């Protein structure tokens, strides 16, 4: 874990993709609590992104209210009562949707970047 997280090369999480990252994380890793999700995102990003870890919580409650993730109470490694999040079936579908959207957006931008004149 690098102490130096103010490197100018790092960028913020692109707007709107935090949901996708969280859903994908849960899809891959199964049920996790908030800290684990944040750490996992940081690990996969390999330092490419500067994530305020706390910022996942507003995203989590949003996803929960949409019905894409479900919560249950459990106990953390430090013996504290904490929420565990899991992907729902609707969430899995939404993940597909978001992935498709992301790929389409990518392809569109790529086409424009390649277009000559």
């Amino acid at each position: 874990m690098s102490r130096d997280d103010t490197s100018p090369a790092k960028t913020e999480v692109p707007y709107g993709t935090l949901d996708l990252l969280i859903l994908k994380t849960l899809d891959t890793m199964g049920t996790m609590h908030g800290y684990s999700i944040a750490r996992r995102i940081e690990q996969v990003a390999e330092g490419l992104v500067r994530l305020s870890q706390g910022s996942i919580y507003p995203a989590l409650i949003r996803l929960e209210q949409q019905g894409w993730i479900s919560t249950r109470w459990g106990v953390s490694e430090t013996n504290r009562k904490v929420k565990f999040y899991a992907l729902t079936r609707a969430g899995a579908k939404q993940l597909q949707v978001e992935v498709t959207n992301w790929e389409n957006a990518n392809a569109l931008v790529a086409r424009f970047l390649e277009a000559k004149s």
Partner: protein
Amino acid sequence: MSPRRAFHRLLALVRFGRHERELNGEIQAHLELAERDLRASGLSPAEARDVARRQFGGITQMQDVHRDSRGLRWAENAIKDARYGLASLTRDPLFALVAIGVLALGIGANAAMFSLVDALFLKPLPFPNPERIVRVWEAPSPTSVNSATPADFLAMQERNTTFDALSAETLTSATVTIAGEPTRLEGRLVSATHFQVFGLQPFLGRAFVAGEDQPGASPVVVLSHAAWRNQFGADPRVLDRELLLDGVPHQVVGILPPGSFDRDVARPGDGPAAFWKPLVFTPRQLDASEHWLNPVGRLRPGVTIDQAQADMLRVRAGLADVIPAWKKDWSFRVEPFDARLIDDTLRQSIAIAAIAVVLVLLIACANIANLLLAKGATRAKEMAVRSALGASRGRLVAQLLTECLVLCALGGLAGVLVARVLMDAAVPLLPASLPFTSEIALDWRVLGVAAAIALAVSLVIGLLPSLRTPPDSLTSALNTASRGSARGTERLSRAIVVSEVAVSLVLICGALLLFRSLHNLQQVDIGVRVDRVVTASIDLPLAAYPDAERAAAFYAALAERVGSVPGVERVGLSQDVPLGGAGGENLRVPGREGQMLVGFKRVDAGYFETLDIPVLAGRGLRPEDREGAPRVIVINQELSRQLASRYDVTNPVGAKVTLASPHYDGGTGRVEDLIVGVIQDERISRDLRSARQPAAYVSLAQIPQRQIKLIVRVADLAHVMPGVREAVRQLDPQLALARIETMEQIKTRSLAGATQPTWLIGAFALVAALLAALGLYGILSHTVSQRRQEIAIRVALGAGPSRVLGDVLRRAIVVIGIGLTIGTVGALSLARVLRSLLFNVSPLDPIAFASAALVMAAIGLLAAWIPAARATRVDAMTAMRTDT
């Protein structure tokens, strides 16, 4: 936003606390885990804590974003502000009580007034498709209407193409024996299709069927719901019974539904219609030219009133060859049923009362706004600090508005209670003047209006303090002395009180004008004795008194018997009481062109004496003027005057005129009459403002009538009626005395249309003046307490108490003076609204205006006295030491 999300957001409002706790828990857990991991990677506990926090990001910011994500921010803010507002009210209970009380009065009075306006003007009539119900009149001129003759009505009914049903209606009454007692009930004669016109389904039994209004049908009757309840104990078996109406058995076939026709009163003082009978025309009635039917009809679906009007004009054109010459220029007119339900005077009175009550509400709001301004001045610092901490101006305004909303919501709730009390108190007093179709109730519409008023008031009061320019910077706001109010506030407060004084003055002017008018009306000479005179109504049933002789004999016997009752001084009989209207007939002078419409009143020999009506020339009527004797009439002074001016008849006594006069059993004839006397005018019309009416009095014995009034002058009102009743009962036990009233009561009733609105507006004006005085007291009080230091210094420098008093009073006088000036200008321009309600008073009457100004000035100075006196008692030493 998906509905699921919306639902959760709403839920978050009530789960606010839980969400907060859970989030805090998660944050703690997260930081613990992060610290644990960091320690494991080699950091010291202190460093681990720092890095963990840094990696987490801003906690409070995240919590704020979390709240935005999960809930409805504006709703949460509103709830928070409302709680804060409620708390601040409980911290200052005196202010809260005064403010809520004033609001309750203002909102409650307006809600009550709205319920009246709603019942009279806004709510549709309680019939299905009421806009299709119309009245059809004969119209002598484009601006007047008249009842119809049977022949004309039948033509309308048979030849129209635009009506589903057309029915004729006329008044009737009958004596019904209920539980052994003969009782006079009012009723209506109607066509068989009458209830179809109104779309009424009977509550019990049936309505009339076709053919029941033809000769030979067996007698049937329908009762109103109220009559069924009150007279017959709501007994459903009454449908199997026969009812004796004037001795004739009638089958009760139906009961009307409750509400629609329970209060149908033909004239003030009449009872409500209790029964309906089919109208059967006699052959004589069909040929005669008396106008006594009021047709009412229901238009066919899709037909407009204009189309029906054109249809009726067509029908009339088709009657051209049978219409008598003198009616050639008449027409038929179709009007909406409710066009004449409320007369103009009542309409105007209510409109003015409604305006007055709105003005009272405005003054009440102004007072509360001032109170809040004063409170607001002490919160300027709080607002400055919050603004500096990042609250947007919109947020601050929203908070102030919400607190106002809490205050106004409480005021509105209390106002509903006030409205309930006002309506309960007022409703028993009103119905006499209100049409039977109006139902005054505290229903959802009224509650909705009360809520809307509370909302509007809170917006006005809440936004007013925001009109003050906020201080330029935090430091300047913090630097003003804690109890100081900005100059701007003071000016705004004073402007508000000036407007209160002005509006109050307008109301007081209006009230005084109305009182003067009422006084003038009360002074109108009725021309008859009002003291210790009792009247009663007697109906002679046709079966028992089939001809004129029987009736005349009854009159003579009645007058004699009642006259001998101990305590009775004089007896008279008449077709109508004074102020009770009269018939109208055409009078012609033989040998001269043209004719005059004169009032026509049948009276007996004792009438003039009983009522102290002086005979100015010739003689009054005598017992000798009966059937067989030469026909004589007595005319009133106004008729004498008009005969002189139009026909040069200078000495009417001894002149002969021809007067159309009705026969006992219907029909009219023309008779030559000899004028034998002239009496001083008595007031015939109930409307005291109307001009003098020419009238001819004929002998009741010569032209008897079945419905008469017994007029008795007594020594003592309280004890004589049983004796009179007994005398009548001895003559004919089947007769019932109805509508027993004293002349005092009759006169009071005729004034009621002016008395009630006048006192009402007077009450409003008083409330307004008191509120304005309260406002003046408030700002002066505030000014004095704000300037205690200044006053103390001046006292210390030698200013005497009278000087201090004078200063405060001068301030008050300026405010009152400006208010009076503006108010007078306003009153001058608005007073013409009252013109049609005023009797013998100009809307610009200087006495009323001057008195109003004096009253307001006096009240204002009185209100100013208390704070002024307090100012003189400011203790210089303590005032200069303290800061507040």
